[in-house]
């Protein structure tokens, strides 16, 4: 548990940061909140030759609503900043609530949404709700910017599409939409400071009691956060009922492949997917964005 030696840079602009990362090569890593990379370094699981701190890129901390575009969250916004943001709460209280369930207060004060996504652990709390709400992410590298849907951002445990040489995640956009409700339910083994055993996010577009559209995203039960599309098909176009949502829950179980580990067996996780898919759908249907 000792932080090994590394070079430290704190560029003043995004262009300077990407240039530095290109120059230093893949052995250099960006540093945002540090709640993942520094811990990995202390545990000997990562040994970057240099850390490029993004702390001076203050424009990446911004959270705002852009008409026509939607909710724009800078990659350096901390979890507590997202939780406390009036703009986030006004449009998608469910994102604020998901940010509040992440880790513990100390981590939420330091950790950033960009770091949470780039770190790409399957049990991360923000991806399910962001994917359910159709978020996209923008990355800026030496060759310019590109935007991808978050659902195709993750490629495996701790792996994502970001280019290791010079690419930096800059913002997350949750588009303007006609969804009427969304929510994220986390099942952790204690009330704070626990990774999700199962996390389920849902977003629905209701027309009276009829479910027009639904998106269900499952966390911690596959190598990446996964959309349970077959489960959504079960309920779309139908009038909701507890039985129907239970059916969706059972179908969602077919959309995950959980492992057995120290936090739960695959059988338990599968049954939790059923339970929390049903509950998360019902909450989004009846309570709106919560």
């Amino acid at each position, binding site marked *: *548990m*000792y932080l090994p030696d590394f070079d430290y840079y704190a560029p003043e602009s995004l262009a300077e940061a990407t240039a530095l990362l290109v120059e230093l090569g893949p052995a250099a890593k960006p540093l945002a909140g540090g709640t993942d990379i520094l811990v990995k370094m202390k545990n000997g699981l990562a040994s970057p030759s240099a850390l490029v701190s993004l702390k001076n890129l203050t424009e990446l901390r911004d959270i705002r609503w852009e008409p026509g575009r939607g909710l724009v969250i800078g990659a350096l916004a901390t979890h507590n900043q997202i939780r406390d943001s009036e703009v986030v709460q006004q449009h998608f209280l469910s994102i604020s609530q998901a940010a509040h369930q992440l880790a513990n207060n100390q981590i939420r004060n330091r950790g950033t949404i960009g770091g949470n996504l780039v770190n790409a652990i399957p049990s991360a709390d923000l991806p399910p709700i962001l994917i359910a709400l159709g978020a996209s992410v923008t990355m800026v590298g030496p060759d310019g910017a590109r935007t991808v849907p978050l659902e195709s951002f993750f490629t495996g445990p701790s792996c994502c599409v970001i280019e290791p040489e010079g690419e930096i995640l800059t913002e997350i956009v949750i588009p303007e939409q006609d969804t009427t409700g969304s929510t994220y339910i986390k099942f952790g083994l204690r009330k704070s400071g626990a*990774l999700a055993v199962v996390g389920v996010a849902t977003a629905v577009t209701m027309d009276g009691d009829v479910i027009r559209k639904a998106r269900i995203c499952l966390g911690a039960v596959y190598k990446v956060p996964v959309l349970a599309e077959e489960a959504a098909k079960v309920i779309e176009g139908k009038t909701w009922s507890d039985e129907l949502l239970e059916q969706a829950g*059972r179908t969602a179980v*077919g959309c995950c*492949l959980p492992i057995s580990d120290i936090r739960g*067996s695959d059988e338990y996780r599968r049954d939790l997917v059923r339970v929390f898919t049903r509950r998360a759908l019902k909450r989004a249907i009846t309570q709106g964005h919560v």
Partner: protein
Amino acid sequence: MSQPTNAAGQPQNDPKLPPREYTHPGLPEPENKDYAVIGKSKPKIDAREKVTGQARYTADLKFPNMLYGKILTSPYAHARILSIDTSEAEKLPGVKAVITHKDVPTLKYGISPARWDENIFCSETVKFVGDKVAAVACIDEETCYKALKAIKVDYEVLPAVLDPLHAMDEDAPQIHPEYPRNNNTEIHQDFGDVDAAFKQADYVRTDFFVGNRTYQAPLEPHTATSIWQDGKLTVYSSTQSPHYFQYYIAREFGLPMGDVRVIKTYVGGGFGGKLEPTGLEFAGAALSKITGRPVKMFYDRAEMFAHNRGRHRQYMKLTTGVDKEGMILGVHADFIMDGGAYTSLGIASAYYAGAMLTLTYEFDNYRFDMHRVYTNLPACGAQRGHGAPQPRYAFEAHLDNIAKDLGIDPIEIRLKNARRPNTVTPNDYVVNSCEMVACLEKARDVSGWRDKKGHLPPGRGIGIATGSFVSGAGYPIYRTDLPQASAMIKVGEDGTAATLYTGATDIGQGSDTILCQMAAEAMGYTYEQMKIVAADTETTPHDFGAYASRQTLMSGAAVKQAGEEVKTQLLETAGQMLDFPPEQLEVRLGKIFAKDNPDTILTTFEDVARTFFVRKGPLTGRGSYAPPKLGGKFKGAPVGTSPAYSFAAQVSEVEIDQETGEVAVLDVWDVHDCGQVINPALLHAQVHGALYMGMGEAIWEEVRFDKNGKIANPTLGEYRLPTALDMPRVHSSLVPSYEPAGPWGVKEVGEGATLPTMGCFRNAIFDAMGVSVNSLPLTPEKVWSALREKRKADGEEVWDPMTCECYLED
């Protein structure tokens, strides 16, 4: 100064206290008018230093030229050491010493003298992942890690024993050649006639339960800074017992105890894990001797888990015979304990496991069989409640099963069998004060048991369990005739301050505070004028330290005697000054008055103390305490003996998510018989803390291993201690009680409140769902699984999540 005396033999003039209601720590409670200083929630004497960050813990200490040391440990659960090459490490710049078993004494040590089975460093085999192999001292911490990496150890990996239930198999690998079949401790005790009792019984039931390996996880990591100079060794340590450290360090290095000084700094929690030497003192002492410089050594969080000495995993079979009214006729406890690679305090843990089961209920026939086995896992030792909490969980669950089978209310069956005061257990423990019945009745009433039991909505349940614990062990850990505790008080020359010198060890629980309250009460002085020097083997008189919940009663008895000696001398001088018979004078809160006229202050403590100093020199008082001879004559009889036993009943109310198995603990009511209370706020804080730990063990905490015997969760992220958000509403209350064997009638509280917790949660879940989870911790997944099994057994449709159509590729 009088001879060491037994407080039990002292006349006790204190009246039995009127009933008092306590609620939460921090809330005002009724004033105890019988006493001037005790019975009041005085602020902790070190509170300001701690909350402002000024308190210096061992790791905060720095000395000129200090080196940093770390220990290299085994990556294998069981392996033969073929060779150790330290040459590369020694060449690194900044490395001042590298040591192995060749450089240190080979004398085996431990804490239980019957089984000294540890070496400072392993020489032939390593016995668990984390066993100590070598150590380095370097100019800074970073260099230590480089040096550890540069030490080359060749191992021949051996088959390991990881399953305690197979440790005693004929073909199991042998861990210690001296202990065939990995049999560390075997106990067979038989009292009365259990077989006859079972024959006579109307109903006999057997149940199996499994406890979990848990770890104390104190906030402060173990640290020791050793300074070996001019043939004398000084060790600053985060320890629960400077005395035992001094004794074992001196023994290991062949030094007279007088040449070893152990100083406790502020300690951030111990809970049993810092009672025995940690290895840091031995390695640090050897490194300091070689380098001639102070050496600071510490464990990081993962190393703490590997060093362990936490709760044993126990496999518990209980058989009980009762008559049709539910009266217990006989009990047979048959246990296996996973001891890990070394003995640690495990012999005592093993005895405690069975011996303490006789306390809360009265029965005459009792048989206890125990095997504590060696495994290639970290050594287990004493954790809050020692060996007793898991068997207590098992017995309380077992008793609820019996009550349900017989159709008796769980509280009724406990009231029928509850121990009475002035009784003797079948294993010869003498119980003086005992308010078990009052605790049960009050727990029933304050929890609303009668309204709730059987009337709660689905998923809600209420459960009860009892507990009892020693107020200090009757005998020290190694054989000696030293008194248990001693104390000195020195009044300053102008009488405006007095210092208490005690070997008692404050590890956060507040003994410095309550001992100063006791000193002030005994002297007729004020708490605010007291200072304390504690737990330094050179400047403070002997005391065995903080374990077995001993200090309030034992250290307190010595402090009381010292305070009374000061008071006697003070009033003699006052009598001379006032020309008044001293026996007719009294002193209270520093004011001296005639006993028959308390409203007229004649003079002050300060004036008289100053005059005393001018005439005779320092005004001092001394005290010591040794318990009477306790216990029976059978093998193991001394373990579990104590001058006094606390008693408690706990009720918990839980709500269970019937689909996920998640257990939400809503309320816990703890009702304690802990004798007279010295500091109500600290007492309730102890109840909250003990309950917190018991709750953690009951639902969340478990040290897990991978298939190679390596700890899978040595972090506070994955070893899930409950957080503040997980705490239920805690209602801590007392029943009036007075213990004749304790100073001012005191008994313990710190460990006893851990005992009932696991059982009362299990019983609440049992009440809520009708399912029994027979292994700790009572995790959501286990409850979920038990609920599914029950639904299947009841013929309900239970959807199988493993058989649905899969839309994903692996």
